[in-house]
């Protein structure tokens, strides 16, 4: 394994120190391991906190700032944060109007956020993100995973919170965005965690993992590598099957790299994906192509499709100023 690190145990802390140095406009608390908006807490504003294991950058720390998160608490790599961090973040952003926890649906994340919410001194609304339709949502599993839609939930709920909406409304729009979203991912290679020092799984030169998550875990099935247009169909189909879209539906599309995929290939895939969506009568009104919700250096791609109405679109377009996502400000 070759990585730009000093010690596998120090990666998260040192990266956080790097973020502090690179983004003086944020407040990074190295003791509490949280990243906070410089102007938090804002009196009367609902606070937005998210977090999860590290290794998904720019999610979540890169999404702290105006119009998005008020704070993020990064856990160790692929390990949810601990309640203390979450509590510290909750306190740091509590402006008296309550705090929304945006929690990706993983057993560890759910439990740690739950423990923190129990101890919080303010009203906390927890919003679960579970958009990954590769996992069947039945009681046979821990439920669908939270993946790419997290970015959309954080952006849109962040915009509404920025406007001064009350706790219930911010939580509601976050849940609504999650409900309207579906994601599916394919990996060409596994990523390598600094601690393990070797790829999470090995894949032959002509095979891919289909239906992977963002933690280096194998997917639902191993299949043969195929041309981009076939892989695009392999991704689009389960998404449209899980959350059917009426012809004419407006969607925001996120074509997301899992960390090791060149942007050039993401655009090749976007080309095929957007054609398939057009064939299905779906109108892509906004799109984002890049590495946003990653799995370290995994070569792979995820697609998130979120059906939006004009109000959600307005919130999507609202100004955002974070290290990882920025427009209008």
């Amino acid at each position, binding site marked *: 394994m070759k990585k730009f690190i000093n010690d596998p145990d120090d990666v998260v802390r040192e990266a956080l120190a790097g973020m502090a140095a690179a983004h003086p406009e944020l407040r990074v608390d190295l003791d509490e391991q949280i990243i906070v908006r410089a102007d938090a807490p804002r009196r009367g504003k609902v606070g937005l906190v998210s977090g999860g*294991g590290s290794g998904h950058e720019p999610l979540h720390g890169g999404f702290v700032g105006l119009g998005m998160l008020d704070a993020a608490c990064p856990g160790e790599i692929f390990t949810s944060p*601990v309640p203390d961090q979450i509590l510290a973040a909750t306190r740091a952003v509590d402006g008296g109007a309550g705090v929304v926890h945006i929690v990706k649906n993983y*057993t*560890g994340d759910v439990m740690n956020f739950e423990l923190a919410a129990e101890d919080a001194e303010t009203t906390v609304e927890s919003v679960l993100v579970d958009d990954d339709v590769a996992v069947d949502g039945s009681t046979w*599993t821990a439920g669908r995973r939270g993946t790419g839609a997290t970015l959309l939930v954080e952006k849109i709920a962040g915009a509404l919170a920025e406007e001064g909406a009350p706790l219930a409304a911010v939580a509601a729009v976050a849940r609504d965005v999650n409900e309207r979203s579906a994601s599916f991912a394919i990996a060409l290679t596994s990523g390598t965690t600094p601690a*393990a020092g070797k790829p999470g799984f090995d894949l032959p030169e002509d095979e891919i993992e289909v239906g992977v998550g963002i933690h280096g*875990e194998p997917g639902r099935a191993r299949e043969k590598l195929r041309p981009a247009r076939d892989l695009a169909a392999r991704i689009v189909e389960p998404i449209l099957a899980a959350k059917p879209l009426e012809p004419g539906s407006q969607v925001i599309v996120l074509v997301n790299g899992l960390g090791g995929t060149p942007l050039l290939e993401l655009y090749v895939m976007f080309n095929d994906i957007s054609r398939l969506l057009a064939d299905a009568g779906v109108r892509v009104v906004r799109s984002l192509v890049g590495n946003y919700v990653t799995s370290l250096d995994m070569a792979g791609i995820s697609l998130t499709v979120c059906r939006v109405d004009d109000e959600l679109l307005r919130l999507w377009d609202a100004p955002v100023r974070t290290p990882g996502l920025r427009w209008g400000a």
Partner: protein
Amino acid sequence: MDADLARAWVAAVATSVTEHAAELTDLDAAIGDGDHGVNLRRGFDAVVVALAGFEADTAGAVLTKTGTTLVSKVGGASGPLYGSLFRALGKSLPGEVDAVAFGDGLRAGLDAIVRLGKAAPGDKTMVDALTPAVDAFAAAAPAGFAAAARAASAAAAEGATATTPLQARKGRASYLGERSAGHQDPGATSTALVFAALAAVADA
């Protein structure tokens, strides 16, 4: 169990977890995200540090502190789960702890884990090792602490092994569906280590 034995137990778990960290991580890489060994090592290292500066007269206080530290240092699924186990166990222990009281405490720990994680036996989680261990401890408690610990350790190891053919229904491994079968559950494996450590210190 007194405070010293509790400390010895926790120290033995810490040593064992460090020794087996790579193995636990490999098991987790196969059906999870490859961090279980790292998580527990980080947690028990922190526990060792925390206990070193911690004055306590009772096993209960030591184990409660252990649980609290795990919750605040581990993260992931295993942090809250093991943290709750030790916290509930510690809190339930009276001043004087005999085998029966300890058995009751273990059951309280199991209950806490199930309350939090909602796993049933057969879901391919640590509960599959913990449940038979708790049962075996209670059953053997009349024979004394050391005997009960030995029985629990054997039962936990057996429970861990028995997770191999199962399809996971909780935790990350459940995402794999049928592909989760054929691998031993990392959390059940570490639970077996926890009871092996208990048996070892109880015997000493």
